[in-house]
């Protein structure tokens, strides 16, 4: 039996190495095949000039429409500031137990908080956010374990505090969910 496929779709410019490393981490965490492709979409229609941010709900729907039928899960990676109408910003969002999620690295840069540039830290944070949103598409809720990647993070400090792995409790739920999908 072949492994299910997770597709990462990047929107905007990203270093190739960065995307490959993220793909590798996702593959290890979910034991899936991981493809990567460029999303060639003009994002201006998702821009809200009043908020100077991009509408996360519309982008999530757009990525969902773009997802290939062969792809088990699809995650859009952005480098723009995301919002949803009710919140001032989001790092990402996903359809719980669905096929699609989105994550943005825009608010994960050290420089935005007056700290020195740190590419390694940026990669670690991005990896955590991508795995976190994909976790939701596998039906995982937010976890109380402070080091689990599924811990809810509303600030950068929260992201740094947790690890990039799914805790055993969440992994048990994940395995049940994957078994259900396989059946």
């Amino acid at each position, binding site marked *: 039996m072949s492994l299910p496929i997770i597709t990462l779709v990047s929107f905007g410019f990203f270093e190739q190495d960065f995307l490959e490393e993220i793909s590798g981490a996702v593959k290890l965490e979910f034991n899936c095949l991981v493809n990567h492709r460029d999303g060639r979409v003009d994002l201006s229609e998702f821009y809200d000039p009043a908020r100077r941010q991009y509408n996360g709900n519309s982008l999530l729907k757009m990525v969902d429409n773009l997802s290939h039928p062969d792809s088990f899960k699809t995650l859009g990676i952005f480098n723009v500031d995301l919002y949803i*109408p*009710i*919140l*001032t*910003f*989001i790092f990402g969002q996903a359809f719980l137990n669905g096929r699609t999620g989105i994550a943005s690295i825009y608010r994960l840069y050290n420089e935005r908080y007056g700290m020195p540039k740190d590419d390694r830290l940026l990669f670690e944070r991005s990896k955590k956010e991508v795995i976190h949103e994909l976790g939701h598409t596998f039906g995982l809720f937010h976890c109380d374990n402070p080091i689990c990647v599924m811990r809810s993070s*509303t600030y950068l400090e929260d992201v740094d505090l947790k690890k990039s792995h799914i805790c055993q409790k969440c992994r048990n739920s994940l395995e049940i969910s994957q078994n259900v999908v396989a059946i």
Partner: protein
Amino acid sequence: MSKKISILIVDDEESVRDSLYNWFIEDGYHVMTAEQAKMALTLLESEHFDIILADIKMPGMDGLEMLRRIKTIKPEAIVIIMTAFATVDTAVKALKDGAYDYVTKPFDPDDLTHLIRNATKQISLESENDSLKKKVITLENVEDIIGISEPMKDLLREVESVAQTNSSVIITGESGTGKELVARAIHSNSPRRFFPFVSVHCGALTESLLESELFGHEKGAFTGAMYNRKGRFEMADSGSIFLDEIATISSKMQVELLRVLESKTFVRVGGNKEISSDFRVICATNKDLKTMVEQGTFREDLYYRLNVVNIHIPPLRDRLADIPLLVDYFIKKYCMSMNKPPASIDPTALKRLLEFNYPGNIRELENMIERAIVVGDGKRITLRDLPMEKTIVNNSTESLDDFEKAFILQILQKYSWNISRTAKALKVDRVTLYHKIKKYDLKPAN
């Protein structure tokens, strides 16, 4: 979370509903949405929601009007009002109408997380509080009154029905039968259970002390009255007052008490302001009040005022079936309080306990078990651990009256038929002793 918290989102904007729905779903909450206040109110009729997040500006019924209606039907509901246009006036209005909090759109994700976490904490505290209240009521009501015998089943049925009324109650029974426990059970099953249960041991206080204790006093009313002090009747407002050993109060206090019971008003000692208090009276005595009325030592009008309902607690010797259960209960109680593993009881020791007369009733049995656990090896209570060798064991061929007759005669002979000294030794008054002498037709030996 032991119980899944349910959230209802009410907003006319689809994007807001969807955003909040997705946000809360990821946190594991049970979430439903409604696009109008009317729809939300319909949903609330059939579903329970712990938290309701409602927009203030909606077509038709607005958030504030919806808040008022929700609070009328479900006052405990936690409603959080959201709006894009925050003004102090509307915020204050929402909070005055019972909103839990008020937030301005768009929220900081962290604020939203904290808001919901705090509301969740309040819900769990309230539910914990409810379960503790129920536990306390259960403890006072059933678990402490132990018995499977028919007299005890009848007693519990009586307590249950009496508790629902507001009538005065007299609890009668021998010393040590648990009269205060029954009084507490009546209170904790009554609609007054969330208000004070105030207990007064009338027999332990002199007339003037009892007066000050019951009615309170003003500063300077007597030597030592340094401060104003509330009386027990005042403290029992909305609750119940338990007057133990009611037969011991003086004639003057009987008059005072009757007046208070009739008017539910009184004046503090040394005061002139009339104070009213809404309390229920539960009295207890081990004396025969009816006989006291006949003998003129207890006011008839007060007796009828108090004796609306009479509950009699049978002595332990009349409910032998409860002894094994009580023994087991006291063993567990004292082993736990002394940090010992639960002990067992030897069948011969239990047999001896079943044969005993128990003039001191349950209190006496309790003391015996406590002593046995203290002096015993801590594993098994044996005959040796029981103090019965020095006491009179019940002879099943004799009735209680025979026992009483023989005992009184023995004490009378001991004091050479001196009535005052004999009455003192028996801890009864002279009138009661004369009554007993007449009843048993007791006469000096020659």
